[in-house]
């Protein structure tokens, strides 16, 4: 029997009709670009709220005796600050936000694999954020973002709410990871082999399995905490044989990979911005790509380095220390590759580039203090002090958040069709960079001298550096206000960007800004790496993108 003829084309040729009406287009949208922007807006709202909490913390610490808020309230404030920044700001911005917005365009897809699932994972996110903040109404968690038992078992009902909220946002991340992984595996444009993918896609590709696997482990830990609190199931309750240390294992088995969830996409952003503004092919493409995978893999094997003071057996401590040192190798490879990319390049100091270079510098500091902390003797000394606070803020603010800002300045034209104002942008960068360093650099000294973190009052000998850090943090907040002003102003008044304001070479810049609903009129064919600035573009089939030609209908070739 003869095989029947192939009729309608595949996914690449299938164009859904664009939905009409405000709700279908902008609220419950299935379009990955709209969902990405929704993620970014929501995450920036939470970023403002958590930033206010951060300023409340710094204001409290202006005075050794505190006095701005009560000690219990202070505990609630830093717990919610940490939880919000990790789960509602950095992770959603880098994965749901920039991931959704950019990587389907970069691989030449019309959308992600499961648009409906994508919409669902977005809408879970603001709901869980509201749940998290509503925990203030019933007594917010007081044990920091790690919520170690037994403190987290004793707190008011808000801790249960916290667990439920983080569980939900975890479900959302899991679905995003699943969606992205399938999209990258199955929906790349013809010719786009794995070693021709842009590095931002590699960043997402390394992050997606972490989102999928590690976040599920967190869901288990949170579910156990929740049923322990609500139904008295004694997983972590030592009076009934449970183990508080087990929470630390379950939590860090997620939360160490989560660190890489928060940094690998930022690595990807930096790897896009640096070659574009240095006008030079990225140095060591494959090394950067594969080191992301190496970091993602080894990230699962180091969680107990957060627990050197928790009574871990010495024969277990040693391998965790060594593997943690080993993670420094792929990370170092990236730093060297970026530096080598800049070397001899024709560098354009745009705001995005400034943030990218700032990222490389600050992340290196954060990474090196990380290596300090991996060493058991040193960790025993500074565990639970402000040294940790300094380290994690250098990685998450100096690293991830600088990456987010670089991405915002870089891809804002693709979102809106307008460029962010450069003058305000440079002001934003310099004030932020200086304010950030003045805030967090002194904390290294505070930590080494022994100031414990997460306390509402402190010894008067630490007063000067704390006041210094607090005043500097206001500068940082001011810089971020400039950024918001810049965004709001530039949406209406920014310079029109055209399709490709930066002369970048990845696929998303070869189509109009903002892109059409269907992304590509005709799915292009890819012939090489996107970073070779001396060569013609390695794409075919993009000739009609910037014309008025209609998209290629389903089935036609």
């Amino acid at each position, binding site marked *: *029997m*003869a*095989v*029947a*003829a*192939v*009729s*309608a*084309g*595949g*996914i690449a040729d*299938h164009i859904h009709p664009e939905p009409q009406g405000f709700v279908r287009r902008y609220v419950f949208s299935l379009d990955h670009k709209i969902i990405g922007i929704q993620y970014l807006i929501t995450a920036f709202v939470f970023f403002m709220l958590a930033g206010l909490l951060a300023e409340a913390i710094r204001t409290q610490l202006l005075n050794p005796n505190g006095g701005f808020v009560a000690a219990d309230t202070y505990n609630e404030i830093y717990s919610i600050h940490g939880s919000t920044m990790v789960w509602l700001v950095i992770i959603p911005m880098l994965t749901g936000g920039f991931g959704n917005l950019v990587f389907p365009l970069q691989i030449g897809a019309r959308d992600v*694999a*499961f648009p409906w*699932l994508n919409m669902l994972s977005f809408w879970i996110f603001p709901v869980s954020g509201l749940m998290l903040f509503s925990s203030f109404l019933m007594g917010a968690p007081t044990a920091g973002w790690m919520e170690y038992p037994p403190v987290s078992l004793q707190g008011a009902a808000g801790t249960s709410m916290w667990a439920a909220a983080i569980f939900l946002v975890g479900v959302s991340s*899991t679905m995003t990871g*699943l*969606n992205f*992984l*399938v999209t990258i*595996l*199955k*929906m790349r444009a013809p010719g786009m082999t794995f070693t021709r993918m842009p590095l931002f896609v590699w960043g997402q590709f390394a992050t997606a399995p972490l989102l*999928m*696997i590690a*976040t*599920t*482990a967190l*869901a*288990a*830990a949170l579910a*156990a905490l929740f*049923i322990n609190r609500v*139904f*008295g*199931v*004694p*997983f972590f309750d030592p009076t*009934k*044989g*449970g*183990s508080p240390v*087990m929470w630390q*294992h*379950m939590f860090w*088995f997620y939360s160490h990979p989560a660190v890489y969830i928060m940094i690998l996409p930022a690595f990807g952003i930096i790897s896009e911005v640096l070659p574009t503004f240095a006008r030079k092919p990225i140095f060591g493409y494959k090394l950067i790509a594969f080191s992301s995978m190496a970091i993602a893999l080894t990230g699962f094997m180091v969680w107990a380095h957060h627990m050197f003071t928790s009574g871990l057996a010495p024969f277990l401590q040693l391998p965790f220390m060594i593997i943690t040192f080993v993670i420094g190798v792929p990370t170092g490879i990236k730093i060297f590759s970026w530096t080598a990319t800049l070397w001899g390049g024709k560098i354009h100091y745009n705001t995005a580039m400034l943030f990218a270079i700032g990222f490389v510098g600050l992340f290196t500091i954060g990474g090196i203090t990380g290596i300090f902390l991996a060493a058991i003797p040193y960790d025993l000394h500074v565990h639970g002090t402000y040294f940790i606070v300094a380290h994690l803020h250098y990685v998450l603010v100096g690293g991830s958040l600088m990456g987010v800002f670089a991405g915002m300045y870089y891809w804002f034209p693709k979102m809106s069709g307008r460029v962010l104002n450069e003058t305000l942008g440079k002001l934003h960068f310099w004030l932020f960079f200086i304010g950030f360093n003045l805030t967090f650099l002194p904390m290294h000294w505070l930590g080494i001298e022994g100031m414990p973190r997460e306390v509402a009052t402190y010894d008067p000998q630490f007063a000067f550096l704390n006041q210094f850090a607090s005043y500097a943090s206001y500068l940082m907040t001011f810089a971020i206000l400039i950024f918001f002003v810049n965004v709001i102003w530039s949406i209406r008044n920014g310079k029109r960007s055209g399709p490709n304001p930066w002369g970048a070479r990845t696929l998303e810049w070869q189509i109009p800004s903002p892109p059409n609903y269907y992304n590509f009129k005709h799915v292009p064919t890819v012939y090489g790496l996107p970073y070779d600035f001396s060569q013609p573009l390695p794409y075919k089939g993009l000739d009609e993108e910037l014309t008025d030609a209609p998209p290629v209908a389903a089935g036609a070739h």
Partner: protein
Amino acid sequence: MTAASLPLDSHGNVDQLYIETRELRLQGFLLFLVSDCVLFASFIFAYLYLRNSGQGWPPPGIQRLDVAFAAWNSVVLFGSGATMHYALENFKHGNFMRYMWFLLATIVLGAGFLGGQAYEYTHLIYGEHVTWWGSGIFGASFFTLTGMHGMHVFIGVCYLTVLVLQSAAGVYTRGKFFGITAGTLYWHFVDVIWVVLFSIFYLL
């Protein structure tokens, strides 16, 4: 593959869009099972951690679980895995009625397993040695893990019931039956999780 088993659109042509989206859904579903696996693995880790946390197992005052009934109940569930496998095989080969009977048998065996679980739970809760999930780490790990698994079986039974209704309404054709494949994958997954849970709770 014969033409009859290819996915066809309403004009009788090969439906390329279906082939490609099926691929995506299959991959997505497998990844969902992987992450579900991690959920179980985390709780299994918790169980093994608590089990080895010092006071011996089972904890003082608790009797070891009796394997006899559990062995029988496990075989009921494993048997449902075998019938599900043949349900899918028969559907692929076009034996629709046999597919329906195997599917119904799977549902009956799955529901039977749930009944057996309920019976075992009542024995533990109201038996000589009272154990409930709040009473100690034994109950906590046992009831959480088996309860989670029971929930998965229950969802599976509901899913398979929907499959029966859909199949009776003619939703699945010889070329397009991803719903049945996904159901089979899910059901096998639930079975295999039970192999692990049975081993670590009753045999270890």
